């Protein structure tokens, strides 16, 4: 560690190197810390969590009972022991609350004034954070909404499009500025379980569906998808039927781009996770082994940011598995939930992981603090004359004469 600091100081090393090394070290020692927990508001399972991009301070969570809660993650009390409190809640009594389970929540990428939520009551709502009032987009096909994503990287020439994956094989794009659905992407033959925008190119969208295929779209193109991902890297001609082009051998229910947007991770109910290059659609053939996946709806998993070998955090049953993305090795399993884990999100600034599950808990996985050096402890004990007295010897009455 000292060599890294010296290298940075003298200019031998790129400044990023120290940051990456320390971030990686922190991610490798994630564990449940008794000093940190998140206030429990939800009465039912938690389906989705999102942390805002700007400051990384506020966290949204959506539950199976339709409730949406906003938490403040920063610790302003001087104590080590800290509970992340809920700042505000959209409870069952609110006029605008969703009728059924909330499937996806996401902050507006530019500021925390707005967020979107999609739910099984066939609506996607756009909320104003101050007043907690919402406007809804109703979908004329009136089908369950599995996943909606707004482009989550604040770029200058950003389009305000939100993509919605529903039970209908068509993917709909809604414009948040005008309030209507402006485009439909056709091509899938089954329910669309997961949609994600690429963090690198603002017009590239990836969608995953129950027909075992994953498609990449450029929303500016009028014709269909750019390409479909094929697990065998075959060159299938157009004459063979589309059913032959499969990304997984079962339903594909999870998608995540790596933070640089060059690779895409997909998980499927065939218990496999695959890594693809976004530019060509080639399967990189990284083998993660058996990634247990029994989720009927979308699985929300996260990839770390800013670490030198990137890590993927995938909910597997009641624990979260941590894999090294490019080598495929299982680093560790984070156990702590009592029931199935549904979603997890990585906080890039503090290298913390928040995961929510059916046991209505959000657990915070924090890097273990470094133990202080034994030398320093002994030095301070001998040196300071005002060294802390053993509490057993402190007297309980006040020292004032009065």
């Amino acid at each position, binding site marked *: 560690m000292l060599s*890294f600091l010296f290298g940075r100081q003298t200019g031998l090393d790129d400044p990023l190197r120290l940051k990456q090394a320390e971030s990686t*070290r922190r991610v490798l020692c994630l564990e449940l810390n008794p000093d940190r927990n998140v206030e429990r508001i939800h009465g039912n399972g938690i389906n989705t969590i999102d942390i805002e991009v700007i400051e990384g301070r506020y966290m949204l969570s959506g539950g199976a009972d339709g409730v949406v809660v906003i938490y403040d993650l920063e610790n302003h009390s001087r104590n080590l022991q800290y509970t992340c409190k809920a700042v505000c809640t959209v409870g069952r009594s609110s006029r605008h609350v969703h009728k059924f389970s909330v499937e996806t929540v996401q902050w507006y990428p530019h500021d925390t004034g707005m967020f979107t939520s999609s739910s099984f009551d066939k609506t996607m709502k756009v909320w104003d954070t101050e007043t907690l009032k919402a406007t809804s987009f109703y979908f004329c096909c009136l089908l369950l909404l599995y996943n909606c994503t707004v482009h989550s990287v604040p770029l200058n020439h950003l389009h305000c499009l939100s993509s919605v994956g529903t039970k209908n094989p068509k993917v709909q794009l809604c414009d948040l500025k005008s309030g209507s659905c402006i485009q439909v992407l056709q091509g899938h033959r089954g329910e669309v379980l997961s949609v994600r925008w690429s963090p690198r190119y603002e017009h590239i969208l990836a969608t995953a569906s129950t027909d075992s295929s994953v498609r990449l779209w450029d929303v500016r193109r009028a014709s269909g998808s750019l390409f479909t991902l094929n697990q*065998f890297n075959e060159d299938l001609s157009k004459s063979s039927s589309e059913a032959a082009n499969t990304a997984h051998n079962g339903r594909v229910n999870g998608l995540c781009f790596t933070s640089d947007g060059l690779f895409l991770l997909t998980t499927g109910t*065939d218990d496999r996770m695959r890594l693809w290059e976004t530019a060509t659609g080639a399967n990189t053939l990284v083998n993660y082994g058996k990634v247990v996946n029994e989720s009927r709806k979308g699985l929300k998993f996260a990839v770390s940011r800013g670490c030198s070998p990137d890590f993927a955090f995938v909910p597997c049953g009641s624990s979260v598995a941590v894999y090294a993305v490019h080598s495929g090795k299982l680093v560790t399993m984070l156990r702590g939930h009592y029931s199935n884990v549904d979603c997890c999100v990585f906080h890039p600034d503090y290298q913390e992981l928040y995961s929510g599950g059916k046991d209505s808990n959000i657990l915070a996985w924090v890097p273990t603090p470094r133990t202080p050096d034994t030398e320093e402890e002994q030095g301070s004990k001998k040196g300071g004359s005002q060294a802390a007295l053993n509490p057993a010897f402190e007297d309980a009455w006040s020292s004032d004469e009065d």
Partner: protein
Amino acid sequence: MNRKRALKADTFKTKKWKSGSVSLFRVQEIGASVAHEGPADIKASLEYLMSLFPRKLFNDTLPPVVLKHQLYSIQSDKTLVDRHLNELREQGEVLMFQLGFDSESIGVVFAADFKAKVLATEAGRETGSMEKFLSTVLPCCDISVDKKKMLKELLFTDSEITQLVKCGVLTVKDAGSWWLSIPNSGKFIKYFIQGRKAVLGMIRKSKYSEMLKSDLEERQPTSQVKFPIKYHIHDVVGAELVDCIQTTAGMLLRVVNS
């Protein structure tokens, strides 16, 4: 826990490369140092597994077949195994086939063995289309081939394709595409599935559904199990149907409850 400490140490240690010496316990971590030996390693493991395959059982009509996931039980890094196997396939030494009973099981055969057996079984009949198939299709297609390619690029006629399907080298996948397959492999798959079920049953019946690997190897297999039991053990370990736990008494195999 060991894995985490090793990775943590890696991120902070700068590895100094001295010519001619490789640090002892880092060899597995550093793929680069074994990259040139990788394909050779895989080939050696393949040959070992092929030696476990019972040729007599099939009266020599079948080339020795090994499943890809059996290699995972010998080599620890799955990604490297996959990559090296792909290299071997591109060099033309090894062929991979989708076996059909489980979408994840891929069979691996040495190309030379496969060609020899296929030509031997076709010795009686007309071999024109078969030789054409062996020389043109095998080098360029990996696991499946589709109609357009066969007709336009490789200049096969419909009747030749029908003949190939009858011989068993092509199996229907979809309206216009075929899987490459091994002729006479039906019996192999039947015995294999039976044997796998029997071996898993043997482990499951023991107390706590777990058994030491050495004990399992010494047990008398039932008549259901036609292959040597080591073949099945590699299969069951590599497919992650059992958990491998290191104990002081050796490797313990415990059936995964799904």
